[in-house]
Every structure is written in C-alpha cells, then in structure tokens.
C-alpha cells in the first residue's frame, strides 16, 4: 500500500489527482489532502508518506517553503501550471514535474518513475540511513568537553581544553600542559578516561603516555622507519609516536 499525500489548493485539481490515483493498478491510500503551506508543515512533522503530489503556488505561499522547513525523505511529484520552477523542484526530492493540464498518460509516466525509484533506491536509502546514524552517534550527539575541572588544594578551577598542548602520564598521574606554560594535575588517572571526553578530530594519543592536540603541532620529523618525532608549540620536549600509532597518526593529520 503506497501512502500518498496530496498538497493542492484548487478543488478541481485535487479531484483530478484523486481520480488518477484511484485508477492506478497499484494499491494506494491517500493519507491526506492539504491546501496550505502551514498545514503541510504540521502534517509532515508527524507523518511519513511514501509519495507526495505537490502543487507549487499555494494559497498561503510557495510549497518549497514546506520542504525547506521539513526535511522530506520521500519522492515528490510536482504538479503546476508554472514552468519556471522545474530547476528548483529537482533540487528538492522532486522526481517529476507535471505541467497542468496533464494527461492520464503523462501522469502514468510519473507514477512509473516513482515505482522505478522505489524499487531501485530502497537498498541505497537503507544504507544511507545506517551511515547517517553512525555519523550522528559519533559526532553530533557526543558532547566533547570544552573545560576540565581541576582540583587544587581546596579550590576548583576550569581549564579550557583548547588551550591544552599535551596530556602526559607521569608515574601514574596525568598532567595537562597548557599554552601559557602551566602544568595541571588531573583527577583522572588514565589517559583513556580523558581521551573519551575529547574530540578525536583535535586530540590524538601518539603513544601510551602522551595525548597531543593538533593545533599545537609545529614540526614533524622522521625518527626512524616506524616512528616520528613531533615538536609542539609552547612545549619544550620533543615527543615521539609509538610504532603502532604512527600510521594512524598520519591518517589523523589529514582529517
């Protein structure tokens, strides 16, 4: 059953579309007939049709305003008397553009296009969806720390993560070195704990004991066949990538 939404403000045009839809061979259900930009936006917030027939010039505005406010994932067949919008229509999810008045034959052609689109793109769509989810999980939903809280004596202060050149483990305690030359003792006891809280685009664990920030890299030199030496701005010691991290480090630099 194909769920169809009709967005059309003229009564006869709506009736004609419904008639053509009913005469199709496939099972269809018209889930709503809407005539305004405003009601279409409200409707699409809650419902997911399989196909939209959409007029362009509506009583309260232009239907492209709907699609700019609500991302629609299903295909749209535009129906309009205006021929100047077709470019814009295909920038949206438009798969066809029916110029009024249109014949049954022309309508059938648009419908066939929809069927082809549906049968051929489901796999691709599904994969895209999975990919999008992964990206969201990894980047958008994660709140990386902008500040670390540092406890010193009996007080607490904030340290901005973007000012940190390097985190370093020293005899079981973790220190952060900032660009002003400050050295801060952290409450976290492992680098792994800290790494999880920071954006992996900016920070990288070059070896078991050192986690550095990309912005402060001043110079990279070859140390031997399998590792690199790095000079960091505002930090006097050279640091070195471990053999196992070198290849990943190179990849990270390009991100």
């Amino acid at each position, binding site marked *: 059953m194909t769920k169809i939404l009709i967005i059309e403000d*003229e009564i006869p*045009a709506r009736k004609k579309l419904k008639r053509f839809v009913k005469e199709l061979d496939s099972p269809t259900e018209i889930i709503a007939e809407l005539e305004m930009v405003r009601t279409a936006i409200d409707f699409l917030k809650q419902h997911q049709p399989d196909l939209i027939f959409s007029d362009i010039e509506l009583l309260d505005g232009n239907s492209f305003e709907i699609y700019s406010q609500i991302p629609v994932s299903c295909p749209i067949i535009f129906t309009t008397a205006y021929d100047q919008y077709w470019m814009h229509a295909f920038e949206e999810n438009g798969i066809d553009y029916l110029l009024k*008045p249109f014949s049954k034959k022309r309508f059938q052609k648009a419908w066939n296009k929809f069927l082809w689109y549906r049968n051929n793109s489901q796999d691709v769509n599904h994969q895209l969806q999975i990919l999008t989810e992964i990206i969201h999980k990894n980047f958008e939903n994660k709140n990386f720390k902008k500040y670390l809280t540092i406890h010193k004596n009996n007080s607490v202060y904030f340290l901005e993560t973007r000012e940190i050149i390097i985190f370093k483990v020293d005899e079981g305690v973790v220190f952060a070195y900032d660009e002003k030359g400050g050295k801060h003792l952290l409450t976290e006891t492992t680098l792994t704990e800290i790494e999880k809280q920071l954006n992996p685009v900016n920070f990288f664990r070059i070896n078991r004991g050192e986690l550095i920030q990309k912005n402060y890299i001043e110079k990279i030199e070859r140390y031997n066949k399998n590792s690199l030496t790095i000079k960091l701005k505002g930090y006097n010691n050279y640091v070195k990538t471990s053999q196992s991290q070198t290849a990943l480090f190179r990849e990270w630099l390009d991100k």
Partner: protein
Amino acid sequence: MSESKISQLKTQLNPHFLFNNLNVLDQLIEEDKNTASDFLNEFAEIYRYVLQSTDKELISIEREIDFAQQYFKLIQYKYGNAYQLQIKNKNSMGYIVPMTLQLLLENAVQHNLGTEEDPITIQIKIEENIAIFNNTSLKQIRKPTSGRALNNLNEQYRLLSKKPIQIHQMENEFSVEVPIIYQQNV
C-alpha cells in the same frame, strides 16, 4: 497623452491563468459535461474580453462589472466559498480602465487567505467612485510582490483622468478607490 505609454502600462492576464483553467476544465469534463461546457463558454468570453480590452483605453463600467463577475466565477470553481463577491451598483454610467476590477480581485485573492470557515468577502460599490474593499486575513507567508500591477494601474488613471487611485490599508480592511471617467474618447 501618449497612447504608446498607456499600452505599455496595460496589465496582462497572468499567462498561467490559461493553463490553470484548462486543468479545471479537464476535471469538469470528467464530472459533468454540462458544467464543463458552461465553464468553457465562460472562459472563452473572459479571454475574448481580455484580448479586446488590450486595444481599448476605456470600457463601460457595465461591461467591466460583467467581466468581473465572470472572472470571479472561475475563482469559485477553484476555491469554493473561500472567497465571495458582492456588487452594489448604484451608478453604472461612465468608464473605467479595462481589467481594473480583475486586477483588484486577483490582488485580493493573492494577498488574503480565505477558507470555507473564514471566507474573504470582496465588495464592489459604485457611487461617485468605484470602491473595492475586503476584510483582510493576510497570508502569513507572503510572496514578495512589487506592487507593480497596482502602480501601473495608478499611472494609467493619472494619464487618463488626472485623478489618482486611493489605497487604504487598515487593520482589518483593505480598500481601493478608483475614479470614474466620464469624458468619453474611446
């Protein structure tokens, strides 16, 4: 008075009007052949009027009123009772720039959102002037309009009668007053 200037200013019927109405006709043919035939004849008359009026500077108020009523019928085929028209005619002597009322009706529909529950009523009153007014329900999302059509019309009246069009925009009402022209030189 430069005739070429006036012909330049003449408003043209929106070209998509034709295609939209052919689409209406297509549906009416399916529903009821008599209605379809009526619609077709009305539409032909409207088109003939539009074509004829492009050669004319002025037309009698009576003819323009007939035309406005026919034009409005087409709107009602499309939108049902969401828009309504009332005409109060006390003086049908005199002349008017052809397509004046059509333009003002089109404007009223374009700018105001009428629904079956909350219709827009457009009234035309003919006294010393022709006044067209309607209750307003401005569309939330408004198309950027240049107001060129109205300015064009105003310019034609200025050239023909030295009297400008008056436009009043109030909170709940919009009105336009158009002068009646008596000296006939058509």
